[in-house]
């Protein structure tokens, strides 16, 4: 088949990618309940079609990348920038804000289109694949849910949001889909909040709100960030933004506002990708059904944040990248430590996600090869984490919604397929060689070393220490999970007896993802077999040995914010040594972690209780997630609620009753007639009312009913008037 890139036709295809599930959503939301099987087949089928398209386009992208670019290029501009397509350049666009008059041509309008480049291609494929499997899985897992059809509708709209986000060529639309994703995560996490049969109904209700609000904080930061960039460059389009920023920086260097704005942008990532300190929503997101968790943790929500970093990398100043690195590394180690103490099977996975996201973010912060590694880890992680979650779901499903690992054990026999898949992916996430996770993670470690080698700075140092450590811990707690769940004697006989393997849709999707968990990284081997150079990913986005080519990712923009480049490391010696080191270190830490887990939880040589006892306060701190939630509860939530209460009081008593005091005084003087009290109690009304009323009462004193007094008053008044007239 023809794998060259034909913009016109292909952009229509790409447009279909989000549109198919969208139509599915609309059909489902309105007619879902009436369809056979409540219409799950409709959406899953639609998602399958989507997946096929994304894969087809991905194939084209691959082909394009290997054939060295330029083929699909219609003008030499595209040829120059290699694999990079923006639909506006091929006239495939939509004037969004204005369509008549002068406005459409003005900068105030927003003419939007699709952006399909290497990063987009990979991400799109990943989202397509993973969410298809999640749909498939849900067909089994969600059976008998009372809002089955709604669930499917929502989860497919969730996917739509992510697909749209990946495809949008400007930050506003990225933001729009970003927000929609927030909404859908809200609805999906809150799915069980509407299910009276669920025993965690109230937790779910809280969790979804928490998720939305926490991410909302990040979203606002993101909004401010691109607002600041628009203020200076008057464009929302990634390509123009990259070009203008780098041109500007090449001329005037990085300015302080670049850093500020960059930090705001990064705030978006911190929110969505659950980086410290906004990670708090992700563990609670467990309250959603397992497929949702799979989506959130693998393909959509959290990936979006990293994806954003990838998209905006060129506009981030070195200072920002430093912050990014530190944040990422911190998150990685911090979440990993918590992961060791959790007993909820999904909880472990949740914290592992946070920690893995830390890896990605830190890597991107390191820049250069790190950028690629981070994004690649996002891809591989998507596969195995989805698989892990679905397996966990399968376990939970098998154990009748029992999530506590301490009640499990010895399930190996009961659910072999699940076990196999989960083991594979655990190996992958632990970074065991020959499994996908290894390749990306190893490159991340390498990236940190590399950046340290290039320029000895704090962030890089911290990353080089924290990331390997985190990797070791990851291996440890993941295998702790495996051993506690599948090995050993069943701890809870009841659970064990009723445990059973899951129905085919679930197992199939498990196996599919597990396959990718192994080979998601191995695809590197094609191209030139065994050749250490040019994995598919590198072909797709860059060539690691020539950092100047990093620009290929960004439409030929010469990046200003990353170190090195060909000049600094002409023969890639630094890179090579770093690679060797990274290989060694990461394989070693993985082995270490696994061994420790085996020692403690399988062979039971060491009693975990003793260790925890030994650690004492430290352990409890970690086990309580470092009290971050409590901290936030006190500082942010409580304070704002208190503020609100105060302002309400302020509003009702001060603003509204500005001169209530006058009223009080007058009342004590007993001047106010009953109706008046009743009718005007506060506010300006009260002011006018009581005041005029008091004066009225004073005036009443004149009206004594005695004619002679009247006359004396009148005479006095007349004299006053006369006096005035005489004096004037």
């Amino acid at each position, binding site marked *: 088949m023809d794998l060259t890139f034909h913009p016109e036709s292909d952009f229509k295809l790409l447009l279909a990618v989000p549109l198919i599930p969208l139509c599915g959503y609309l059909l489902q939301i309105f007619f879902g309940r009436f369809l056979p099987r409540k219409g799950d087949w409709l959406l899953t089928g639609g998602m399958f079609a989507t997946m096929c398209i994304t894969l087809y386009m991905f194939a084209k992208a691959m082909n394009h990348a290997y054939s060295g670019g330029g083929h699909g290029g219609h003008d030499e501009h595209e040829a120059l920038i290699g694999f990079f397509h923006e639909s506006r350049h091929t006239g495939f666009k939509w*004037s*969004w*804000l*204005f*369509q*008549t*008059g002068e*406005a459409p041509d003005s900068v*105030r309008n927003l003419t939007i289109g699709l952006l399909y480049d290497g990063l987009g291609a990979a991400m799109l494929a990943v989202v397509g694949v993973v969410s298809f499997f999640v749909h498939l899985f849900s067909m089994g897992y969600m059976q008998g849910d009372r809002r089955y059809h709604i669930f499917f509708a929502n989860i497919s709209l969730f996917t739509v949001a992510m697909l749209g986000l990946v495809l949008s060529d400007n930050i*506003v639309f990225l*933001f*729009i*889909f970003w*927000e*929609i994703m927030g*909404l859908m995560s*809200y*609805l999906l996490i*809150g799915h069980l*909040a*509407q299910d*009276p049969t669920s025993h965690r*109904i*109230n937790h*779910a*209700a*809280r969790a979804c*709100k928490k998720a*939305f*609000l926490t991410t*909302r*904080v990040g979203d*606002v930061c993101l*909004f*401010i960030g691109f*607002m*600041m960039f*628009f*203020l200076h460059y008057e464009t929302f389009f990634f390509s123009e933004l990259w070009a203008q920023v780098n041109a500007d920086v090449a001329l005037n260097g990085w300015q302080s506002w670049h850093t500020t704005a960059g930090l705001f942008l990064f705030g978006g990532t911190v929110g969505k990708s659950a980086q410290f300190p906004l990670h708090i929503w992700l563990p609670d997101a467990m309250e959603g059904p397992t497929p949702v968790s799979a989506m959130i943790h693998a393909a959509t929500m959290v990936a979006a944040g990293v994806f954003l970093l990838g998209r905006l990398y060129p506009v981030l100043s070195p200072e920002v990248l430093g912050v990014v690195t530190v944040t990422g590394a911190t998150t990685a180690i911090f979440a990993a430590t918590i992961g060791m103490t959790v007993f909820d099977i999904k909880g472990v996975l949740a914290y592992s996600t946070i920690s893995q996201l830390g890896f990605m973010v830190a890597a991107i912060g390191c820049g250069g090869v790190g950028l690629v590694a981070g994004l690649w880890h996002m891809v591989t992680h998507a596969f195995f984490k989805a698989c892990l979650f679905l397996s966990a779901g399968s376990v939970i499903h098998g154990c009748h919604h029992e999530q506590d690992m301490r009640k499990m054990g010895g399930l190996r026999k009961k659910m072999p397929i699940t076990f196999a898949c989960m083991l594979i992916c655990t190996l992958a996430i632990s970074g065991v060689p020959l499994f996908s996770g290894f390749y990306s993670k190893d490159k991340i470690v390498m990236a940190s070393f590399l950046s340290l080698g290039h320029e000895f700075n704090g962030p890089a140092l911290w990353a080089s220490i924290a990331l390997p450590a985190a990797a070791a811990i990851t291996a440890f707690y993941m295998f702790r999970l495996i051993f506690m769940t599948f090995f050993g004697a069943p701890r809870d006989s009841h659970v064990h007896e009723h445990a059973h393997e899951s129905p085919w849709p679930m197992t199939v999707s498990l196996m599919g993802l597990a396959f990718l968990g192994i080979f998601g990284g191995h695809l590197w081997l094609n191209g030139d077999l065994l050749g250490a150079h040019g994995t598919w990913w590198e072909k797709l986005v860059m060539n690691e040995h020539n950092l100047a080519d990093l620009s290929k990712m960004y439409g030929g923009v010469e990046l200003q914010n990353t170190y090195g480049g060909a000049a600094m490391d002409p023969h890639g010696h630094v890179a090579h040594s770093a690679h060797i080191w990274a290989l060694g270190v990461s394989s070693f830490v993985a082995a270490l972690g696994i061994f420790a887990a085996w020692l403690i939880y399988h062979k039971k040589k060491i009693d975990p209780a003793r260790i925890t006892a030994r650690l004492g306060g430290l352990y409890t701190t970690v086990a309580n997630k470092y009290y971050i939630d409590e901290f936030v509860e006190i500082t942010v939530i409580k304070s*704002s*609620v208190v*503020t*609100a*209460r*105060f*302002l*309400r*009081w302020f*509003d009702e008593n001060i*603003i*509204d009753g500005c001169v209530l005091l006058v009223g009080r005084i007058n009342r004590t003087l007993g001047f106010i007639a009953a109706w008046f009290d*009743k*009718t*005007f*109690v506060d*506010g*300006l*009304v009260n002011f*006018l009312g009581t005041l005029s009323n008091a004066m009225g009462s004073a005036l009443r004193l004149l009206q004594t009913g005695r004619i002679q007094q009247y006359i004396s008053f009148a005479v006095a008044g007349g004299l006053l008037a006369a006096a005035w007239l005489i004096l004037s």
Partner: protein
Amino acid sequence: MEHILSWITFIPLIGMTAIICLPKQSVGLIKRVSLVATGIPLILATWLYFQFDPQSVAGGGFAFEEHIPWIKGISANYSVGVDGISLPLIWLTCILLFLGVPASFGIKKSEKAYYALLLLLEVGILGVFISLDYFLFYVFWEIMLLPMYFLIGIWGGPRREYAAIKFFLYTLAGSVLMLIAIISLRLGTGTFSIPEMVNMAQAGLVVGPEFIGLDYSTWVFWFLFVGFAIKIPVFPFHTWLPDAHVQAPTPISVILAGILLKLGGYGLMRGCFPIMPVAFQENAYALGILGVISIVYGSFVALGQTDFKRMVAYSSVSHMGYVLLGTGALTVWGTDGAAMQMFAHGTSSAAMFMVVGVIYDRAHHRDLNGFGGLCQPMPIYWGLTTICFFAALGLPTMSGFIAEALTLLGAFQAGDPRFQVLVLISVIGIVITAAFLLWAIQRVFFGSLNEKYKDYPDMTPREIFCMAPLLFLCLLFGVFPHILLDVMEPSVQHLVTLLSVGK
């Protein structure tokens, strides 16, 4: 069709007369009449909306104008017309009033008077939107007050008398200031025609004596501003709003929030800023500050509420703050945003009040903490409410987002860099708004179901019919904003050029 505006405005009056002539007992007929009397204007307005060519008013000027000499003694004319700013609001008015009629079918107390007043109210509102003559404008402006007073006062809640008179007094206090300003404008310019005043203002010919130690443009500006700000309502003139809203019957709150608040913003854009551009420029930052205070303050107070309707009322305070912020920024985007926000808020807040009305009709209380788990017996209600709330908190694909985003972007680009600080502050409002809305959803719909709400019926077709169109509009203009913005754009651009005279 050269008198179409007059037709739109006065058909409800005909309907009112008809209702007055009908016997008190024939309620069904009265309802049908009022449906027709609000429906025809809606049809005409819709036709007008899509008939209207925005470019025709690109350089100022108005469409569908009518000029008839009215009071020769003071050379006040019946001159009406629409531009891109007023037309959408007219359309909105017709929509909401039309929906307001079926929404009122629940009312069982002296319907005849109710529907008559409702139609009179529509006349007043539409009149304000079409007037190009300040005297006419003021007359219509005041005509609105009376029906509102009685609609709140007769059909309202327990403290209705207080709320009604409070509403009346606040607005009257504002409008006497307006009257003084208008008169002195008349004396200064020798005309009541707003366009002429605007032209003279461009030439710097609007001059007059100083008052209470302020020079002419300043005090006239502030008098007019306060008059309109009370309607918007801007902090600190907002305290009539919660009471009026809480006490008013649902359809009236809907109209109050949906349209009456917009009159303030519209008045500023039509009758205050362009006539006093210099004073406007001098005080633009103050306006921005007021706007931001309203945004943040309103959202916080809303967060502190336990009464569902009060919360929604304060959310209006918060949302209308964007109108000031956007206009004060003196950028096209900002003003676009402000104009759009008026429409967006008109639909979303109206829908929110209907939401409150639905539950109040069933539970007869509005205590947010008293509900829980309502999404189980009332899924449709929960669904519509969610859409409505997310429209209110400015979720993308909802018109509210376009409005707020444009406002903030516009304000951020303002020539006056201090506005950037304001924007940074105002985003707090965005988060808090999300917070109280979601918290409300959680308290009302999620969690375990309170037994006594177990067998509540879901929304009736009538209620759905009243709410769904509004939500549809929110979505429509959120996804295809150009339907609205294309109409507004030229006039807004002209307005901005007017306001930035001498800059």
